[in-house]
């Protein structure tokens, strides 16, 4: 299969969906001439013009609100919020309006709105450009939350998100844009809400998503040499969460670590742990371990930034602890 970057995979998904459906249009800051802060919308403006690739003012709350209004009245907008760190500017619209309007109206409207954003640390950009705030989003009934790790998943899931008649927040990772992987040309989709076993194993289950998948993969290689066989569940969608796949893996391994970049307290790992507790307590050989970001704002200093997020060593240590107790 052809190898392309995560960025290209996303760009291709946007083009295919814009070709497929004339109601799809993009709006966001610097997505037109500039092609997006991280280049995901590169060249789309040249191709489709101002009517379908709309640069907006720096007005995050209105971007989401306008996206909603357009979605309610026949369009299929894809809005971009440049950094998930800015999501606090538009959470009112996202939580109160986008997520709830269908329910409040007794099901008498649909919201085919996709909000693309991007998060994560790794570029020493400091506390306002390095966050992972997905756990806020899984606490919003009415939306779906998608976080792909590979170019393949990125393309297939972005296409599904755009076609979805429910609002989707689609979260990319800034450190993955240049990562390459096999991606078929043309049409395929990946169902929202389906996790995938990215590596089979029998001793411990590593539950993860987005960039941390790759740290887990590396960790699994190291662990293998130590005789520990790690299975890796890539959630891909956080809401709804595919707990069946998680539980099935746990039935086999009896041990789980959740690996997330977002800071620990109140993070997504807490929810996964709670659901494991509820649904698979009897399968557990010991407590689930959370390997998560530290509960601090992201420090600028490169040495501190590295410490603030999980790495291969921490994952390996967790797996060893799970095995050895």
């Amino acid at each position, binding site marked *: 299969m052809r190898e392309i970057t995560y960025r290209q995979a996303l760009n291709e998904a946007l083009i295919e969906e814009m070709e497929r459906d004339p109601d799809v*249009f993009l709006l966001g800051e610097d997505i037109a001439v500039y092609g997006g802060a991280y280049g995901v919308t590169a060249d789309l403006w040249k191709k489709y013009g101002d*009517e379908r690739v*709309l640069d*907006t*003012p720096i*007005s995050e*709350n*209105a971007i*989401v*609100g*306008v*996206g*909603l*209004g*357009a*979605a*309610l*009245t*026949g*369009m299929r*907008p894809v809005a971009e919020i440049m950094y998930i760190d800015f999501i606090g500017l538009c959470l*009112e*619209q996202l939580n*109160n*309006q986008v997520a709830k*309007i*269908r*329910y*409040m*109206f*007794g*099901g*008498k*409207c*649909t919201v085919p709105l996709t909000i693309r954003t991007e998060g994560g640390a790794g570029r020493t950009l400091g506390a306002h450009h390095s966050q992972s705030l997905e756990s806020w989003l899984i606490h919003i*009934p*009415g939306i*779906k939350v998608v976080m792909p790790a590979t170019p393949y998943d990125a393309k297939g899931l972005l296409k599904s998100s755009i076609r979805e*008649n*429910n609002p989707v927040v689609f979260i990319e990772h800034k450190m993955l844009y240049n990562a390459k992987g096999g991606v078929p040309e043309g049409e395929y989709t990946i169902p929202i809400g389906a996790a995938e076993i990215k590596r089979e194993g029998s001793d411990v289950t590593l539950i993860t998503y987005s960039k941390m998948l790759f740290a887990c993969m590396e960790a699994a290689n190291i662990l293998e040499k130590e005789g520990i066989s790690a299975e890796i569940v890539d959630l891909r969608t956080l809401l709804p969460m595919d707990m069946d796949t998680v539980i099935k893996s746990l039935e086999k391994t009896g041990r789980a670590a959740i690996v997330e970049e977002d800071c620990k307290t109140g993070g997504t790992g807490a929810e996964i742990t709670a659901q494991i507790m509820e649904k698979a307590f009897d399968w557990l050989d010991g407590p689930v371990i959370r390997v998560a970001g530290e509960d601090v704002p992201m420090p600028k200093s490169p040495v501190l930034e590295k410490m603030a997020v999980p790495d291969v060593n921490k994952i390996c240590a967790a797996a060893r602890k799970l095995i050895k107790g």
Partner: protein
Amino acid sequence: MIMDKELAKKLLRQMMEIRQFEDMIMELLAKNIAEGGSHLYAGMEAVAAGVISMLKHDDYITSTHRGHGHAVAKDGDLKALMAEILGKKTGVCKGKGGSLHLADVSKGNLGANGIVAGSLGIATGAGLSMKLKKTGQIVVCFFGDGASNNGIFFECLNMASLWKLPVVYVCENNLYGMSVSVKRASAVEDLSKKALAFDIPSETVDGQDVLAVREAAGKWIEQARSGKGPSFIVANTYRYYGHSRSDTRAYRTREEEKFWRERDPIKIFSGRMEEQGVLTAEEIKEVEEFVAKEMEEAVDYAMKSPYPEPEELYTDLYV
């Protein structure tokens, strides 16, 4: 503006429907049949009726927490609206929305909103749809003086002007945002000045005079429909009751209230129609009685309707 009888009756009926709809709600609240908050529109009827009577059926509006008037005027189904107030299954939102979320997308009402300025984005986005789809429809966005201090209001006006969207922004200036007077909340008392920051044309109208409202609305709706972009109407008006039920109205005087009650939009309009010989006292009475009957039926319907089934808790969240 020369009036024909039918139009005069229609405007009168709409204003009376709004007034009586709320009289009924007050009764239901007093009897504890209705529960929860209710922000009453009484006193402001000429704004909703005046503006909306200039719209086509498939034009859109967005409304506010004080949304009964807009919902009734936008071809509202009185029975379904009243049932919604009571949280009944037959409500326009199946009882899930209530007073704060009255909506009927099929009639072009994109909804009341519990969040002050919460529907500015929706209106502006609907305007963007209309422009992109070149449908010729337009959008009216209602909001209050208080809402005009919230960030999203400014963000949306900027976008609407920048992109020449077919949206008429109607600020219902009833002098207070809850308890805080315009003077204490807005650096400019003349709210139309806010449009200057966006090169949006604006007009201030007497919101108690349904014909004045219609005239202004007509002009700006036409401008929107012809692709010339958004406009900003400030309608000066007044709400008769407290902000909500617990409000003792300590922030305003009884004299001020009296002054405004004397400028009642229904009285003004029916008086003028009689004076000008468009409607007789009899005919006015007939409209009133017609509306009273409609209202009784609506309340009866709402009260007899069942509550939603328990399963309804989980439906309508996702497609």
